């Protein structure tokens, strides 16, 4: 059972501790890093109307993946993730209010092709991944979606993005979607995820209305959060959401409903780390209002 987080943990500032972030030990120098997460931001990636500059976005993706894998060339970096001859599925997100940007999908696809993947062996899908032959036959997956809050699970990140691989989505809803981590053990998925990308160009930090969306709660953060460990990527994403909520909504609303699935993906399902001390967090690019 996960520790119970109560409102009082917010009042004492211990929420992050119970969430597994272990801030009390953050000053300890010798914590072993088991996951690397790269946050990259660029002030020019969006214009005043939130239109995306595709060249800048491509550059952000390239730089982040190079840093993630300690490579100096983007094609070489993607070549570490996939091999020629493979079938690769890009699990995107088509939620109408805040989908994965087409420009980001195109940037990923371009680098996969550069790395030797045949264009007709790259799948791009969301709702029909379970029946899409390119995903059924995929040997590698790229997991990409926008960062946002979620009424039930607290946060929609890379872990929740795989719910479309489930035979029954409602099966993963009990207890605030506690067991989303189990999705990564489904046969169609297990051991195939090469890269997780949380699109934080315009994250959503709070929701309203039946579809849990209002533009007033979306802001131009102009970032990407990239890593190989989906739990670590979501852990960083959650810290960003919490920081923005603290700034705009106040400390009492720092968390949406507690996204317990992130910690449980680590402690119950063992698919990654939610311990901030075990995450090597690298920040690149634009630093204004970075929040985390």
């Amino acid at each position, binding site marked *: 059972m*996960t520790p*119970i*987080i*109560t*409102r*009082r943990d*917010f*009042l*004492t500032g211990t929420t992050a501790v119970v969430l597994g972030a272990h801030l009390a030990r953050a000053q300890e120098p010798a914590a072993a890093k088991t996951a690397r997460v790269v946050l990259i931001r660029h002030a020019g990636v969006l214009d005043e109307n939130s239109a995306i500059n595709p060249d800048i976005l491509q550059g952000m993706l390239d730089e982040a993946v190079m840093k993630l894998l300690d490579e100096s060339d983007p094609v070489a970096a993607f070549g570490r993730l996939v091999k020629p001859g493979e079938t690769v599925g890009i699990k995107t997100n088509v*939620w109408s*209010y805040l989908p994965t940007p087409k420009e980001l999908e195109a940037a990923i696809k371009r680098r996969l092709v550069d790395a030797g993947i045949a264009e007709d062996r790259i799948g791009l899908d969301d709702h029909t991944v379970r029946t899409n032959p390119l995903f059924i036959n995929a040997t590698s997956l790229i997991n990409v979606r926008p960062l946002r809050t*979620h*009424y*039930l699970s607290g946060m*929609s990140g890379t872990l929740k993005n795989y719910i479309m691989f489930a035979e029954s*989505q*409602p099966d993963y*809803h009990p207890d*605030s979607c506690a067991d989303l981590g189990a999705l990564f053990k489904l046969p169609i998925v297990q051991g195939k995820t090469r890269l997780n990308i949380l699109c934080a160009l315009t994250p959503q930090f709070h*929701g*309203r*209305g*039946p*579809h*849990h*969306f*209002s*533009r*007033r709660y979306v802001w131009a953060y102009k970032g990407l959060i990239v890593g190989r460990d989906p739990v670590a990527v979501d852990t960083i994403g959650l810290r960003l959401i919490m920081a923005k909520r603290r700034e705009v909504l106040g400390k*009492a*609303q720092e*968390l*949406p*409903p*507690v996204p*317990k699935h992130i910690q449980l993906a680590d402690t119950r399902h063992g698919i990654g780390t939610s311990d901030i001390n075990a995450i090597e967090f690298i920040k690149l690019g634009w630093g204004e209002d970075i929040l985390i």
Partner: protein
Amino acid sequence: MKAARAVPLIAVLAAALCVFPAGESMDDFGRLIPKTIGAWEAREADRVYDRTTLYDYMDGGAEVFLAFDFREVWTRRYAGPDGGTEGRELTLDIYDMGSPAEAFGIFSCDREDPEAGIGQESEADFGLLRFWQGRCFVTVTAAEDDETSQRAVLDVGRAVVGLLGPPGPKPDLIGYLPAGSLRADRTSFFHSNVNLNNRYFVASENILGLDRSTDCVFAEYDAAAGEAGCLLVVRYPDAAKAEAARRSFLAAYLPEAGADGLARTENKKWVLALRKEAVLVVVFEAPDPDWARTLASSVPSLKSPSR
């Protein structure tokens, strides 16, 4: 503080008989609601989703509706004056919540915006209109939140409200709230933990044992210097369940409380939990113990649910 019990019998009877005009079903909205409203035009087929298909329609909100007595939602999209090409699109959703109490409930859990004067109660801003009328809860959502879209959102709401039948009563539990300095437009009615935590986060686990068998009211009261004290009233199926919830709450949330269920929390406010028959009363954010005791003691004992 005295209880503000004001649920007229006639309204209860009206609720029992509540149907859409001339007994139509949700599907009839397709012919009753104009396909063109101002410069906005419905171009796609209308859709209806029920409890089993609601997940196909919404990501992020289905559980919230399913925690109520939701039956069906009828939905239509209107393309804007530009044909929708510039992102101007409206979505009209009419939810049959099964009863006026449930329609009020789903409306009441998510109120932030100014009253719009449509239906029994409403709110609108930033391209979102929400209102309830009879057993229906309605939302009109614009993809954009500019002035043109906001005006159209209200026009669509006004075109629909007359088709939704007579007004209905709020949940009876609302009538047991102490009047006093109650902030009426901040009162929420619900059943489940997901609704409580989105309204006022208490705990990551369901320490109050809330489910569809429990009726809950969360209310705010003027306390001091513009601050609000909060009152949670939960009616359980029986006193044993209420007592189990009281013990669970005290153990997880207020372990330092004595037999009186009262303790001061880290923000220097007071929390009080006490049981009255099948009802658990919890006061949060009280400025002092007397304020908490007075508010809690104004809630009457209730033996069992009225349903």
